[in-house]
């Protein structure tokens, strides 16, 4: 078959790249070879636009065992325990086919974690949809939530947290980011680097079908009016097989049979074989006749580019083959020796006794293009006037509007569709500041959260990037954990556009600054570009997955108020920043202006002090102040604790709206018992931490002096109304 320009274009390879391919391999590629390049050089696999900037992120400290570059990151959580975690996007497929797209997103990220020898202990997700009024949103939301649940529930890993957001920038490009966390013994971590020549290469798991062919390339391009036609590039998940694969792999990992292991994710057999061999600086030879196929007459091209799910590639100690076969047979899974490692440093594929591809591995990995794309600054310095009449708005009415809005509504409609208590170690369920999972059999736990704040990033990517890292840190602090590290999923539009590339570069800069200051390294992640349809890009959306350690679960903290007659403290200085606040966006529909500034010094100081107060058991409840400001944060504490509050705005020159709805950063609300009031105040003063005492807890009413006095149940009803009403007819 002649490789025409049209074929090259269809493979997402531009003319310069094609020239480079010929240079690297010294010949014209055949169709199979072109397909392999297309996958390996896709944005999704090669990170060609992002590599330069990802290198600037801090990735190391004394807790980091494995940073970016492996299937997932690994951090030390003491006592020979380590956490393995990563977040990944499955945006494009989920828009095309929401159930399967979301389901296989969960399946893929779980494989990344158990590939490293860890038993997954939790999943989380961050999902973004278009405006709730957009015609597709209801169906997409329903499909994505069912898909996430369908996969996670079946495999039996609790889904313990997440976020659901709506914004018209996602109308034609939804985001589905899934995070998984696993637990492993520090001395039993498995890696993907191949070692040794003539070692058997083994394919295990499901059979290969024709689903997901070119998924990686699809995810590296914009959508257009023919998006529906891309349905066949979406993979179909089978969580049952994944459960079997998980158990079989963990059983085989009990001894030292496995030399290296890699899951077949994006670009399936191609990327897994290339990555393993090139990391080990070896060659690999595969006999494609040995690939277990689900369908008849599959071609080498289809086999190499299929993204059928629930498959792994292993390199085993040759004398352990029989043992491996026995284990996989027990679990009813395929186990096929398909090739061997070689010293050629080439990828060699044979089929029907003929050589069908022969490529130097370096041409696929190290030599893949890296771009230094042009970008322009987005920082929004233009002066925006504050809307005039906001002071005439009634506080209670505004509060109600915010509590009823889709973005601020209580989301149990979503997370009650996810099994969040299976495995018997879920200490904090979804709905709090972080999910908390007990380390099985021990009295310590891990806190996990996922966060994003795209509208801050759109308004100012540097500040937004900093903010989202701080938000993650704060959520981990609020449950009594010491933050350890993050994983990030960077969702952007088309990087070939200067403005989008600028959003990316500046967001990464913000993330990097915050991570460095807080000693909160990035240990894994994923970049998703081309979230764009017909020239309209999503808002820049970095999603941060953070983990923290609670050394002793006796000092875990929750956000629900615990008792009446205790004091309500606001920690951190309130400056009344209303631009980009929920008050402006939801109530006034005013979306201009800069996001609140981040002061990293205060962030760290305030956070560490909250941690100290929690560990010394001086506080009853803690909730970080985020979306909606003080008043919304307090309402959430009241509603979850079924305890009311009586507050008044302290003397200040901000005015009541700015004080109650401002979204200044690095703040928390804490509940302090009468008996601890003096001691807490003293500690705060000694440490130069700014605080206000705004009132006391009381029975079932929330009241604000001179403004309102309302039954808690009324606010709760409003807060839980939206989701149930939206799906009333479903």
């Amino acid at each position: 078959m002649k490789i025409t320009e049209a074929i090259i274009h269809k493979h997402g390879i531009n003319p310069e790249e094609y020239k480079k391919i010929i240079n690297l391999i010294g010949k014209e590629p055949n169709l199979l070879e072109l397909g392999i390049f297309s996958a390996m050089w896709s944005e999704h696999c090669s990170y060609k636009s992002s590599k330069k900037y990802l290198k600037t992120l801090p990735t190391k400290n004394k807790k980091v065992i494995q940073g970016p570059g492996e299937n997932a990151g690994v951090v030390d959580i003491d006592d020979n325990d380590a956490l393995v975690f990563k977040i990944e996007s499955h945006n494009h497929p989920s828009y095309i086919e929401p159930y399967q797209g979301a389901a296989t997103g969960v399946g893929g990220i779980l494989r990344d974690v158990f590939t490293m020898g860890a038993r997954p202990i939790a999943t989380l997700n961050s999902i973004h949809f278009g405006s709730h009024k957009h015609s597709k949103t209801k169906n997409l939301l329903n499909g994505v939530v069912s898909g996430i649940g369908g996969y996670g529930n079946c495999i039996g890993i609790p889904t313990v947290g997440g976020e659901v957001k709506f914004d018209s920038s996602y109308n034609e490009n939804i985001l589905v980011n899934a995070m998984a966390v696993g637990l492993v013994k520090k001395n039993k971590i498995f890696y993907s680097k191949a070692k040794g020549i003539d070692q058997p290469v083994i394919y295990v798991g499901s059979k290969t079908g024709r689903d997901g062919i070119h998924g990686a390339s699809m995810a590296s391009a914009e959508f257009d009016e023919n998006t529906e036609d891309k349905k066949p590039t979406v993979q179909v998940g089978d969580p049952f097989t994944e459960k079997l694969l998980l158990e079989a792999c963990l059983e085989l990992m009990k001894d030292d049979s496995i030399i290296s292991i890699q899951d077949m994710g994006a670009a399936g057999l191609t990327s897994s074989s290339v990555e393993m061999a090139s990391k080990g600086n070896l060659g690999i030879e595969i006999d494609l006749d040995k690939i277990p196929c689900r369908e008849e007459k599959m071609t080498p091209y289809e086999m190499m580019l299929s993204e059928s799910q629930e498959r792994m590639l292993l390199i085993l100690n040759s004398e352990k083959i029989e043992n491996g076969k026995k284990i996989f047979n027990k679990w009813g899974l395929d186990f096929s020796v398909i090739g061997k490692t070689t010293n050629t440093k080439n990828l060699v594929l044979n089929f029907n006794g003929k050589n069908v591809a022969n490529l130097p591995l370096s041409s696929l990995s190290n030599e893949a293009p890296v771009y230094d794309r042009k970008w322009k600054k987005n920082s929004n310095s233009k002066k925006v006037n504050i809307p005039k009449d906001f002071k005439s708005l009634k506080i209670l009415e505004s509060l109600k509007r915010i509590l009823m809005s889709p973005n601020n509504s209580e989301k149990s409609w979503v997370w009650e569709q996810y099994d969040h208590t299976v495995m018997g170690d879920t200490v904090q369920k979804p709905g709090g500041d972080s999910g908390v999972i007990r380390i099985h059999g021990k009295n310590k736990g891990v806190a996990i959260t996922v966060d994003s704040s795209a509208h801050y990033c759109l308004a100012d990517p540097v500040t937004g990037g900093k903010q989202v890292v701080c938000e993650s840190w704060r959520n981990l602090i609020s449950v009594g954990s010491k933050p350890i590290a993050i994983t990030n999923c960077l969702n952007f539009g088309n990087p070939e556009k200067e403005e989008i590339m600028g959003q990316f570069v500046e967001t990464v800069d913000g993330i990097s600054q915050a991570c460095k200051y807080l000693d909160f390294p990035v240990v894994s992640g994923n970049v998703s570009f081309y979230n764009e349809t017909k020239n309209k890009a999503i808002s820049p959306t970095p999603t941060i997955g953070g983990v923290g350690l609670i050394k002793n679960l006796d000092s875990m903290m929750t956000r629900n108020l615990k008792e009446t007659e205790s004091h309500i403290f606001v920690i951190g200085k309130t400056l009344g920043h209303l631009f980009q606040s929920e008050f402006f966006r939801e109530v006034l529909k005013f979306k201009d202006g800069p996001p609140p500034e981040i002061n990293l010094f205060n962030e760290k100081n305030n956070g560490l002090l909250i941690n100290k107060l929690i560990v010394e058991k001086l506080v009853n409840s803690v909730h970080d102040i985020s979306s909606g400001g003080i008043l919304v944060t307090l309402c959430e504490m009241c509603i979850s604790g079924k305890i009311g509050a009586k507050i008044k705005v302290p003397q200040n020159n901000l005015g009541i709206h700015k004080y109650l709805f401002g979204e200044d950063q690095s703040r928390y609300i804490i509940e302090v018992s009468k008996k601890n009031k003096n001691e807490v105040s003293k500690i705060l003063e000694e440490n130069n931490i700014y605080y206000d005492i705004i009132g006391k807890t009381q029975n079932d009413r929330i009241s604000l002096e001179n403004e309102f006095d309302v039954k808690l149940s009324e606010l709760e009803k409003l807060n839980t109304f939206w989701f149930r009403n939206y799906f009333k007819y479903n």
Partner: protein
Amino acid sequence: MKSSVIVFPGSNCDRDIAVALEKFQIKNQMIWHNETNLPKSDLVVLPGGFSYGDYLRTGCIASKSPIINDVIRHANKGGLVLGICNGFQILIETGLLPGVLLRNKNLKFISKNVFLKVINTDNQFCFNYKKKNIIELHIAHNEGNYFADINTLQKLEDNNLIALKYCDEKGNINTDSNPNGSSNNIAGLLNREKNILGIMPHPERLIDPLLSGIDGSIMFESLLKSK
């Protein structure tokens, strides 16, 4: 007391129930579904999960597993059998308990704490609920909507074979307190001899104050007392 937990491909609450049994000093072993001989056990547990991926029908393929013959033999001899969630579905597919479990009325998976009234405490599983018969347990299922014809339901009621019913905090049994559409709010059933119990809620998930409740513990304490 000795127990055996049967592990099917796709079981995912097998570890959870084993942890609970051991916590209450019940000596447990895990039995792979392909075994044909059940070791000597006082109690057999069919755990929750998605045996065979729920393909064909929940619990259907598992009910044909080799070990099931011995489980039925054990039950017919009066041995205790507890089926939780998918285990309840399997018990129904084996014919050891009547009726069917349909998809939840709202066609969604439901994972949440619910209130239950222990209707029959005169059996070895629920004996200790005499002192506290409105309890809170967690449900996590897609097919928990119990259905049986009117005659069967009448027999179950008349013979007091309904172990648990969904209710509200105060013990009211009505449509509002029925999470999944089950006939008569049924959440758990006994066989006529009361040595087999099938339940949708997961007692093994509420055995620790840290895990939002301890009402599940009472069932394990009852079992322990039964021997």
